[in-house]
């Protein structure tokens, strides 16, 4: 019982850290509260840059590979290798061989973000109904038109599934960036001597909320980009609302 309460009070302390600033444990600076906004901004900037670059690299490459139906080995190996290498090791590698700073850390995160996007896009393109593609060709569409008007729209839900996985990964992993010269929301988590346990917990809560939030936003985007035809195909999808409680019908007459 007491341990539960102790945990709750620590938790409350962490929440308080998010909303109001206080003097650091070692003294001399104000931490928490509005100071977190700077960290949040840097965090979002780093994650955003990393995700945009990895999309620009991975999506066109995977679309093309998927279209010509080659490179399945490449697409799947990249994903598997990418998952086998721990992010911390990638960051350490970059710091050791390229040096620290925004660009290098962003590049390390790009390496982390590419595999899910690449694989998902590739698979999504390959899963587009072959008969539809054949029909499009039969109507005289050029290769570029097939990609743009048929394969890309039909693969969009899959592509966004990949991006969504990557974004959440990147947002969560950007917490280790302070070890590479970029001061993100990981700062309070890494420096508990300055921020104290409340800071560590508070920043962790912010990062967790941020990750869940981006997950939801991208889930919404994924739904939004799904062509209406695909929604119809999968049955009652358009009518189902996210997070809606089933309506209880009130019988007005016997």
């Amino acid at each position, binding site marked *: 019982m007491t341990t539960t309460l102790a945990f709750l009070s620590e938790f409350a302390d962490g929440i308080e850290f998010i909303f109001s600033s206080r003097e*650091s444990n*070692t*003294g*001399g*600076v104000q*931490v928490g509260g509005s100071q977190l906004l700077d960290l949040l901004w840097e965090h979002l900037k780093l994650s955003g840059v990393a995700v945009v670059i990895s999309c620009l690299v991975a999506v066109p490459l995977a679309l093309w590979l998927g279209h010509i139906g080659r490179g399945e080995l490449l697409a799947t190996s990249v994903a598997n290798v990418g998952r086998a290498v721990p992010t911390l090791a990638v960051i350490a590698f970059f*710091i*050791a061989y390229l*040096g*620290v*700073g925004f660009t290098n850390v962003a590049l390390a995160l790009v390496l982390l973000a590419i595999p899910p996007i690449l694989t998902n896009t590739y698979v999504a393109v390959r899963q587009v109904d072959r008969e539809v593609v054949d029909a499009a060709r039969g109507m005289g569409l050029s290769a570029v038109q097939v990609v743009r008007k048929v394969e890309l729209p039909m693969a969009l839900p899959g592509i966004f599934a990949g991006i969504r996985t990557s974004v959440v990964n990147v947002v969560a992993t950007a917490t280790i960036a*302070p*070890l*590479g*010269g*970029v*001061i993100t929301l990981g*700062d309070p988590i*890494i*420096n508990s*001597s*300055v921020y104290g346990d409340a800071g560590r917990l508070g920043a962790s809560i912010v990062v967790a909320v941020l990750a869940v939030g981006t997950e939801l936003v991208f889930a919404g985007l994924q739904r939004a980009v799904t062509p209406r035809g695909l929604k119809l195909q999968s049955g009652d999808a358009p009518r189902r609302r996210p997070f809606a409680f089933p309506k209880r019908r009130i019988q007005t007459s016997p």
Partner: protein
Amino acid sequence: MTIQQLMRRIGVVLAMLALTFALAACGDDDEAAQPAQTSGEEKSAKLIQSNPDNTAQTVTIGSKNFTEQFILGEIYAQGLQAAGYKVKKQLNLGSELIAFRSVKRGDVDAYPEYTGTALTSFFDVKTDDIPKDEQQAYEQTKAGFAKDGLTALPPTPFTDANAVGMTKARASELGITKISDLAEKAGDLTLSGSPECRQRTDCKLGIERTYGFKFGKYLPVELASRHEVLKKKQADASIVFTTDGQIVAEDLVVLEDDKQLFPPYNVTLVVRDETVKAAGPDMPKVIAQVQEGLTTEVMQELNSRVDIDKEKPEDVAAAYLKESGYIE
């Protein structure tokens, strides 16, 4: 082995050859002028005598988990062993909080701790309030440990404090020897250090407040990269520790802390009260003796043998004790 290490080794060999020739040359005409060479008599006076009374007493020496601590743990352990104690080693206790708990609980009987660390981490002293005087910091640490049933033995000569390091080349290019020299140029300079350093009063924040200037940029890196950023010219100055082996090995200079900002971090061996009582007078005597020669320069050299030449802490400690004439 990198080229630099190879060059260093060759350098050491050449220096030893030169010394041999020099000694041979000055030879027998003036024997008194050889302070480096300990005479037989002096050596046996320094030699730690094994006392049969001590053999019944087992002492477990602990240490935290980084190079300097491993070396110190080994030096204390091997010294006590030479005095006849049965010594067990637990040289990988992790962070200071774990080490502190272990010695309080009796999992280890003693471990080396830094005065500054003990005051801030265990006794809730704000970094600003740590006495700048080494002896005073030690007295305060000792009083703190006494409340937990622990005795802090007298401190080492060296202090492993924070310091501003630069490459010799960069420092002479800018004409800087002490921290206050940075004042005029700091706006164009990048300082590097651990992520937490940015907001600590015994680190960047303190430098800027005490010396009254601001660095143009701060580059946080993980602790292990603190010398590399200088070598790669990603930073002009970096927060290093005064006993880092890289200072000698990589041609760094430590800027003089002319306004006495950085608190002292001397090492004191923290021993359980009952162990002190049971071990008798030989223990504090041996500890004082083996750490007498541990100046900041000597500690840099010992650390560099482990960190850069990749020797084992055990062997480095033994070599130090032998060279000093404490063991044979």
